[in-house]
């Protein structure tokens, strides 16, 4: 198994467990640690069954041996509140941190848009923005790479069942972080994010609307082609990423309606919002792994 990079997942909840299921299939990543804080958590038990080392002592429980266990990549699927500490600790042990919380202390990373740059910069902490950001920023970028976008807005609608307690307690983090990602990574002059939670049963599949306002009259053919091409790129790691309608053009407005069906690895298929996050996190880890395996990047604490 020398052609894989060893990884740890911090947070054995829904996201961490779904990520584990995906990582087990990876050609480049080998999950070896699952870190939790509750001794009898089902997520830790599941990871142990799958042969991972586990601890309920938080990151501190893994630190003493993580270097000798060869962990070079960590995923944080906990919360924004504890992320900075977790990141500092694993960076000190020479592991890259991939942040799935909205803490956003490292540069934003959206695989189809700026993964190459993020990895080339060899940052020791990268942030995956938000689920809504992963689902929509590629499309804002698909428009802004054709012509300048003065304003990008996204509306993410998720089922109640897929909006976890972390999101609910701090929904402002979602709107702020996503809006800032739309501008910084999506390339819009200004970003705005809206999230709507719908309790319908059966739960609705995550849907997102992307509205862009262009400075000049939109080049309809070029934008349509760019959007189609981008959807193909995202589908490589999220097969259920689909265009529903559009792009619709109305004056300087470009609107794109789409949905994301998850793979259903551990999370149900309607939770495409969470699935796209775990898939993007893993895709980012794999790019790092390629660099590590080829010798182009040696994660070290000094880089942090």
């Amino acid at each position, binding site marked *: 198994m020398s052609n894989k990079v060893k990884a740890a997942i911090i947070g054995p909840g829904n996201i961490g467990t779904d990520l584990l299921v995906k990582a087990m299939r990876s050609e480049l990543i080998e999950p070896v640690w699952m870190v939790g804080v509750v001794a009898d958590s089902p997520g830790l038990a599941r990871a142990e069954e799958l042969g991972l080392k586990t601890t309920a002592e938080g990151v501190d429980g893994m630190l003493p041996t993580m270097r000798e266990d060869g962990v070079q990549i960590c995923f944080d699927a906990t919360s924004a509140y504890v992320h900075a500490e977790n990141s500092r600790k694993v960076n000190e042990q020479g592991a890259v941190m991939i942040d799935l919380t909205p803490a956003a202390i490292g540069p934003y990373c959206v695989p189809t848009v700026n993964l190459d740059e993020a990895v080339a910069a060899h940052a020791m902490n990268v942030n995956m923005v938000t689920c809504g950001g992963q689902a929509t920023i590629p499309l804002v970028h698909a428009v802004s790479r054709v012509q300048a976008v003065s304003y990008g807005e996204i509306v993410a609608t998720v089922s*109640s069942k897929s909006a976890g307690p972390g999101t609910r307690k701090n*929904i*402002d983090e979602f709107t702020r972080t996503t809006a800032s990602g739309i501008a910084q990574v999506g390339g819009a002059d200004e970003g705005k994010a*809206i999230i709507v939670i719908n309790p319908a049963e059966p739960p609705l599949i995550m849907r997102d609307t992307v509205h862009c306002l262009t400075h000049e009259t939109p080049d309809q053919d070029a934008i349509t082609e760019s959007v189609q091409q981008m959807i193909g790129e995202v589908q490589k790691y999220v097969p259920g990423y689909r265009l529903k309608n559009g792009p619709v053009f109305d004056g300087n407005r470009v609107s794109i309606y789409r949905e994301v069906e998850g793979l259903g690895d551990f999370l149900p298929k309607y939770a495409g919002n969470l699935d796209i996050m775990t898939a993007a996190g893993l895709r980012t880890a794999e790019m790092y792994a390629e660099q590590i395996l080829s010798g182009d990047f040696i994660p070290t604490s000094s880089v942090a």
Partner: protein
Amino acid sequence: MDLRGRKITVHDMCLRDGMHPKQHQITVEQMVTVARAMDEAGVPMIEVTHGDGLGGKSVNYGFPAASDEEYLTAVCKEVTNTRVSALLLPGIGTVDDLKMAVGCGISTIRVATHCTEADVSEQHINMATQIDGLDTVGFLMMAHMIEPEELLEQLLLMESYGANCVYITDSAGYMLPDQVSSRVSLARRELKPETELGFHGHHNLAMGIANSLAAVEAGANRIDGSMAGLGAGAGNTPLEVFIAVCDRMGIETGVDTFKAMDIAEDLIVPMMDDMVRVDRDALTLGYAGVYSSFLLFAKRSAAKYNLSSRDILVELGRRRTVGGQEDMIEDLALDMAREQGTI
């Protein structure tokens, strides 16, 4: 129904819910004129914000004629006795918007969520309770979609976060008086006695007055309405009518009935782009249980894609859409147009 001697607080929605039929184009000057007249008539509370609350400025809901900050600053300094509220929908606005509105001089913040999602308001209600003297209201929308017991649980959550008043909101104008009574009376029994209880109606089934009276009878003490009914769908409970009815019934609102009538007739009706009334589409909202501000979006999409706006609204109801999902309307219209071969 004997409600003589009951004291209630009416809250006018013209300058917030009324932004929906005006496509958020009410000017600062119009707001100031209306607010002054409300103050003069003794209306105790008015709401001023983008129709979708603080931060509602967007492609999805519409760009307003002025910013929330401009509206609130202008109105707050213009009124003497009337208190000004702002609406905030978590997921659209943030605590930053809340702080801005407080800085402009609002007395009340109303934090609104879909009726099953009260827990997303914790952050905002908590923050509001830390601001000295700020009247903090939790506002549960589309309250017809769940049973009284489930609704009560959500109201209790908002109360537990620190709201001193909670609202049962008939956003679709779907409820009938019995449905209002059962929800309000259960809430009144179980909430703390000092927690105020409000009802916000829409007039889509022409039940605004009847439902508001049912709410007062069941124990609500704050009632929303808007002069001439300027609000989403067929509008809110027409406030000048409700005030006249209260006057006749001996319910004390503190508002001058004739002055209220004059505001409706002389100021609000002339502002309307189209008459706000129970037309076929507004009636469909109430009949099918659809969020009232979807009205104009459905009409526009129907016109653009050669569809029936009633069909669109009925389908939105069938899919159990909630407030804020305006983006669903064009998406759905495109699906329907393709099926029906109109595009």
